[in-house]
């Protein structure tokens, strides 16, 4: 057994010995993945897992390092990037990803990605055009 394999076993024993807790947070994350475009809040998540919301909040943060709300926002931002790349308008991408208002979406998007959604979309189109151009150029 290598040093790394020994470390894997040691860390698993220290950090992940409570399988019930691990399965609870994994199921919560999967629920968010499958429902990010709908209204998702801590009350709903805790109800689904038959646990108190504060306990679930602590567990999720313990195992993923972020809160369910932070993960939901991350998931929605990733989805909105995908929709913008596909050519959706900012409003459409906002609502399809589960955000409530285009203005708050744009502010959040800029904070996370570093560009407003419109600029991000322009950059994506520019990159794909450059790729197409370089792919078709015969000179």
């Amino acid at each position, binding site marked *: 057994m290598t040093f*790394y*394999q020994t470390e894997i076993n040691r860390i698993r024993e220290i*950090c992940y010995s409570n399988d019930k807790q691990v399965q609870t947070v994994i199921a919560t994350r999967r629920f968010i993945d499958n429902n990010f475009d709908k209204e998702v809040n801590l009350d709903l998540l805790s109800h689904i897992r038959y646990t108190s919301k504060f306990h679930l909040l602590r567990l999720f943060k313990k195992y993923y390092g972020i809160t369910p709300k932070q993960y939901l926002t991350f998931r929605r931002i990733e989805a909105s990037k995908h929709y913008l790349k596909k050519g959706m308008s900012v409003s459409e991408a906002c609502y399809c990803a589960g955000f409530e208002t285009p203005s708050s979406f744009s502010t959040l998007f800029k904070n996370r990605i570093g560009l407003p959604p419109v600029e991000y979309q322009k950059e994506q189109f520019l990159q794909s055009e450059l790729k197409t151009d370089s792919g078709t150029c015969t000179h």
Partner: protein
Amino acid sequence: MKVRVISIPVLDQDKALAFYTDKLGFVKKHDIPLGEGGRWLTVVAKEEQEGTEVLLEPSPHGFEPAKTYQKALFDAGIPYTQFNVDDVREEYERLVNLGVTFSVKPTAMGTVKIAVFDDTCGNNIQIVELL
């Protein structure tokens, strides 16, 4: 500052390019001669060709401490770096069928699943799936 390139030391750039493209499925991005046989050689994920580039760097050559460090990591089974995949088990089976050797078979580690393989260029590489 932005993260555009990460580097992996490789013992043979030709062999590394073949492994990282033919087996792992990366795509060559840049291949620029740097003299004396060395190249600025990068690959990217097929699905994210504008994403972070992986530089296949011949750093173990000509600098003994780099070679010593790389070998020590390899012998201890420690991954030099890791790549994300959607399904570790599926990727493990695909790579085993291509003749890739794993030192850690698909293993659940709490909220992730991991596996570790030999890139044949002096490194262990870990693949990770978020559960």
